[in-house]
């Protein structure tokens, strides 16, 4: 049995808060797999495993803060027996307040300290402050003991509370909402949008992806967003009227595709940092950038170039959402590509009805630069690329 412990992720780290488990008991894990996300108070960090085996038991709950070295999970090596029958190990846990550890006559942990799943454990003062600051409580990373207190809310809002330790980073959601509002109002006011959409058969893409992923080691596996981004980037290279900046009545087509990726923030807000020169990157590189971007969006650590250099944007609704969307262009860009979820629907192939995996892709273009025909050509090009995923 291998013990998976809270790692030390820096000289100043003595404890970490588990944000989420990315694997569940029974899952096979390989050296290098990311199995957990841990918040070190500086940022959320993905934790890799250093052994092969079967994830046996999870000993720490999301939200719990535990000292470095605490056993967080056990991993069964080939040949080990399942440990399911044994009582759970005692784990140093901060679920009980430090006060209760003292021999002095202080309050025992009489209060229920485990909140209902999914419900953040935020103090009343923190909830009120979050409303005042326009912060979504669900977007705030819990502090010690898995509790969202005033300090955590104020750090998330970037507010400066005097004489209190500040957590670096964090994103102000009210500021973000203002920025989104200003940009979208301008977009809606100034840009004469047109919309063109097609429903694309992505069955070949998904079949290829499944086969490809079984071949790849787990850390290198791909999300369908990666080939999609690559195909959109390549199609945009052939559509200069959709890829560039329109500033002061003048349009500059871009040399590269700096593809903005719309990323939803936890609990609210949206941000679209760009993958620079996306058309030059292979799938592995795109996947790596994507993972990196999402992680840094959540940690509130994006580079300014990523925020300003985008030449077009893709917004991908993903699983369990809606079929299609009509996005607004992010100025000074001149196009945005909106991808609905992938759904299995009847589809006619060679005169026969088949079950196919479909995705509706909508292009919003700027009529000052191009017409719908241009976007339609882009969509046909994109479709062609997606039908041969192995060439991506």
């Amino acid at each position, binding site marked *: 049995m291998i013990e998976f412990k809270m790692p030390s992720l820096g000289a100043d780290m003595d404890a970490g808060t588990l944000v989420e488990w990315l694997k569940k008991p029974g899952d096979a894990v390989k050296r290098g797999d990311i199995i957990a996300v841990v918040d070190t108070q500086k940022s959320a960090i993905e934790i890799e495993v250093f052994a092969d085996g079967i994830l046996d038991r999870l000993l720490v709950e999301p939200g719990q803060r535990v000292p470095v070295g605490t056993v967080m999970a056990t991993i069964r090596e080939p040949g080990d027996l399942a440990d399911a029958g044994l009582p759970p190990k005692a784990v140093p846990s901060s679920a009980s307040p430090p006060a209760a550890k003292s021999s*002095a*006559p*202080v309050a025992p942990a009489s209060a229920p300290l485990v909140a209902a799943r999914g419900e953040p454990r935020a103090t009343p003062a923190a*909830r009120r402050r979050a409303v005042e600051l326009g912060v979504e409580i669900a977007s705030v990373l819990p502090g010690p003991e898995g509790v969202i207190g005033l300090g955590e809310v104020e750090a998330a809002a970037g507010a400066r509370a005097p004489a209190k330790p500040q957590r670096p980073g964090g994103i102000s959601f009210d500021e973000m909402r203002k920025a989104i509002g200003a940009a979208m109002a301008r977009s809606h006011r100034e840009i004469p949008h047109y919309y063109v959409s097609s429903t694309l058969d992505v069955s070949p893409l998904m079949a290829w992806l499944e086969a490809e992923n079984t071949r790849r080691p787990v850390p290198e596996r791909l999300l369908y967003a990666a080939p999609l981004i690559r195909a959109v980037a390549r199609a945009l290279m052939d559509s200069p009227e959709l890829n560039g900046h329109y500033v002061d009545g003048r349009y500059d087509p871009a040399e590269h595709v700096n593809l903005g990726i719309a990323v939803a923030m936890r609990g609210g807000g949206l941000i679209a940092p760009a993958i620079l020169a996306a058309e030059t990157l292979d799938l592995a590189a795109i996947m790596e950038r994507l993972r990196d971007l999402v992680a840094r969006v959540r940690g509130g650590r994006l580079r300014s170039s990523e925020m300003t250099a985008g030449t077009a944007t893709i917004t991908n609704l993903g699983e369990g959402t809606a079929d299609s969307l009509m996005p607004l262009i992010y100025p000074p860009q001149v196009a945005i590509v909106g991808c609905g979820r992938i759904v299995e629907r009847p589809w006619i192939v060679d005169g026969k009805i088949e079950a196919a995996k479909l995705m509706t892709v909508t292009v919003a273009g700027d009529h000052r630069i191009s017409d719908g025909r241009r976007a339609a050509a882009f969509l046909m090009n994109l479709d062609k690329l997606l039908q041969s995923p192995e060439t991506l």
Partner: protein
Amino acid sequence: MTGGRKITYREAVREALREALTRDERVFLMGEDVGRYGGAYACSMGLLAEFGEERVRDTPLSESGFVGAGIGAALGGMRPIVEIMTVNFSLLALDQIVNNAATLRHMSGGQLSVPLVIRMATGAGRQLAAQHSHSLECWYAHVPGLKVVAPATVADARGMLWTALCDPDPVVIFEHAALYNDESEVAAGGDLAVDIASAAVRRQGTDATLVTYGGSLKKSLAAAEVLAKDGISCEVVDLRSLRPLDDRTIMASVAKTHRAIVVDEGWRTGSLAAEIGTRTMEQAFFDLDAPVGRVCSAEVPIPYPKHLETAATPQVDGIVAAVRGALRR
């Protein structure tokens, strides 16, 4: 202030008694051993010689009897000060205090009042074991018709008695036995009377509020001092009046610090700490950044051995730990 001077809490009580006996001829002191012996805690030493047997009266060992006599005297127009040795012994007089002193104004439709002051010692810390060491202030603070005060400082010991005597209704004064030797500056002269209705902020702070009273005040201040070295700033609220409670001062402090810890030498269950915690949640719920903490006595009769007595009652390290718990650091 007309120039400070250092006196003990005991001397402050004695001065207050002397002042009352001097200022108002209706005032007299009675209780067990208050005369010839000078009081179980020597608070009335010398007063018998100074004011005579009519004004400083030794009583039989009969709490119910002499408290009842005090109520009668108050009804008859006198301003009696009744001393009971300890709160433990006062239970023998509960019937007189709760059923008569506290009720007569209400039962007479306002025709009668009982301007009685009852003083008693309370609390642990002197190895006097379970029959002399309990903190039952909250039993009295439960009863409408009584006012209950707990002077925690020398100045309050000096100034609360006269104000209590001026009150038309019964006032119970709790003197924590561990305070009598404490020394502090008070004004040399002038009117030293203080109000008996408000709480006092004894230390300003921003991170957590320690709400306390009586013998726990100095422990709370010591804990605040320890925490200050770690950059944790505690506000310390001395309740002073246990009935009525000065909610406004407590809530104003909690609104500022967002964390409250009640330090109360009473047992946790059904304690003043429980009452203050509940009021805080009723009135300041949305200000709270942590559950209201409590540092109370262990739920055992206060033990005789020193180390067990210490372990059973609130101490500085426990208060420090509770504050850290509320701050989650």
